[in-house]
């Protein structure tokens, strides 16, 4: 009985963790494959889905495939501008929702939730319907993509900043005012520095959402090609290995930012 019990307990302790790690592995297999394929030399083969030989060629000649780097650049430009606008508007809105009472505040909270709960295909086609009925059907491009991206990033920014702001101890601002800081000094010396990590996280999230979006973008892009649309286009005929290089770079940059941030906060608060 005792032995059985202990075996059962051991399994309970470690099986769950092992299963969890297996799930993580499942999540990482495709990324590992992407990394591996970025070193694949498939110049002698028409089959793009098998690893032939190791080469640095893809990394050394990233921009070789026609139009790919232009598409990446376009995605970066859209990502940065949509992030900038969505982060500013979203932060202002988060302050309004947490710090102020106004008419329609609760319906605003619901409307913010909806874009996150709607299928992208529906949002994308709605926006297309609007553009077409407003006579912009023939002028789809960077501007309409930008508009769409700000729209779906806004909700995520508002929710992220709101959470940070709501978790802020109101006593800190009172303490600042008690210590001779005027309203504006209190904001810039205490409120803003404390909310900033939330704003930064929101911006990072915005950029990756924007950079990666395909469904909504594809419906509203017209002839403009973003990086995901480029990948979609070439997927039918066989993708150049350089796409994997871009995927790997994105992953490493994001990982560096997240890990760097984690280490920075840990150094600040080892307790």
């Amino acid at each position, binding site marked *: 009985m005792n032995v059985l019990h202990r075996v059962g307990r051991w399994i309970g302790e470690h099986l769950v963790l092992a299963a969890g790690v297996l799930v993580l592995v499942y999540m990482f297999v495709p990324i590992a494959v992407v990394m591996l394929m970025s070193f694949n030399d498939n110049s002698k083969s028409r089959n793009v889905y098998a690893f032939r030989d190791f080469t640095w060629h893809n990394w050394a000649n990233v921009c070789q495939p026609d139009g790919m780097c232009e598409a990446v650049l376009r995605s970066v430009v859209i990502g940065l501008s949509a992030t900038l606008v969505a982060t500013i508007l979203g932060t202002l809105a988060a302050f309004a929702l947490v710090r102020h009472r106004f008419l329609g505040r609760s319906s605003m909270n619901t409307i913010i939730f909806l874009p996150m709960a709607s299928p992208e295909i529906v949002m994308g086609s709605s926006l297309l319907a609007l553009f077409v009925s407003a006579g912009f059907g023939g002028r789809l491009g960077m501007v309409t993509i930008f508009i769409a991206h700000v729209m779906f990033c806004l909700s995520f920014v508002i929710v992220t900043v709101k959470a940070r702001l709501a978790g802020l101890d109101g*006593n800190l601002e*009172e303490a600042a005012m*008690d*210590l001779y800081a005027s309203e*504006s000094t209190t904001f810039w*010396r205490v409120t803003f520095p404390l909310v900033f990590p939330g704003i930064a996280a929101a911006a990072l999230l915005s950029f990756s959402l924007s950079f990666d979006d395909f469904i909504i973008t594809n419906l509203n892009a017209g002839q403009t090609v973003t990086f995901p649309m480029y990948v979609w286009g070439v997927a039918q005929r066989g993708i150049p290995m350089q796409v994997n290089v871009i995927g790997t770079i994105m992953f490493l940059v994001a990982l560096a930012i997240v890990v760097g941030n984690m280490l920075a906060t840990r150094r600040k608060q080892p307790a």
Partner: protein
Amino acid sequence: MSLAADRTDTTARPAEGPRDLRLAALTKEFATFTAVRSLDLTVPAGTFFALLGPSGCGKTTTLRMVAGLETPTSGTIHLGDRDITWEKPYRRPVNTVFQNYALFPHLDIHENVAFGLRRRGVKDVDQQVQEMLELVELESQARKKPPQMSGGQQQRVALARALINRPEVLLLDEPLGALDLKLRRSMQIEIKRIQEEVGLTFVHVTHDQEEAMTMADTIAVMNGGVIEQMGSPTELYENPQTTFVANFLGQSNLIAGTVASAEGDVVRVDMHGTQVSIPVDRAHTRTGAGWVGIRPEKVLVAPAGEPIDAPGNHMTGGVVTDVSFVGVSTQYLVRMPWGQELMAFEQNTGRRKILRHGAEVDVSWRPEFAFLLPADQDVRAGAFEED
């Protein structure tokens, strides 16, 4: 950033000579209840003043109005001759030690303490911060961030951050509530010492009666938005004027009785067949029914028939129903013939054996220790602190 505006502000500087803090008819109503009801209060300059009461009695609201973090519904707050009722918090020579300390998590200890001075554009900030950190014995921790410090250390930082500004009035909002008992005791003595050293007016809000009695020169007991009684710790303890004070500050036996006569400097009360006498300055009613109050440590117990060394009110027929030995003293519950159980605390001097459960005893106390309260007051008020 309007740093420039802050710098030109001279009103935050302490005035020449200390000034009294006066609250007049101060009232604060919230949407659903009145937190503070027409409060009149004067805190003499340089004293350690405690606002004591159960949670929700309005003490914190009063403090926040003095700090400027809450605006009164009506009434005024004066510092000497200066009306500060409507002053912004950052224009008052008043600083607060917050309940949860409210230390800025993004600034280190040095910068937390320097915050007020920097806002006021004071020179040689670093020097002053250094001295202040020495006062609270944290000079070696200056570059740590608040989350890296223990509760007691954070508490001292909060104190230093407020004190360095030399405010005319320092407000302390339950500053020791989060600390464990031993640390709390030593911090109480520490804060009292600092107050005597710097000579500023301290207003301390707490629900802990022992803390208030240890630290304060004057205590105001608050209940339901009004002050029940104000005075020195001894006055409040020895001569409470309401059942609330009698029960909230320490413990009391309250026994129903009827005033038989009130002549000269003594009021005589008939208490379940026994006549007890109460000095007139401790009798807070002169006619009709009342509560005779006596503190448990003033009640003497002896086995039935044996002499009790207290010439005074003497009652027989008690039975010990509970004995709790707590080290320094033994606490008895004695059932009296009229059914009530009286508390009696006896110092463990070793002069006599501890009484057993069920022992028949006589009970007595000196008349000058008893007090008389009006019968219309709730006998249980303040007895159970829901915290």
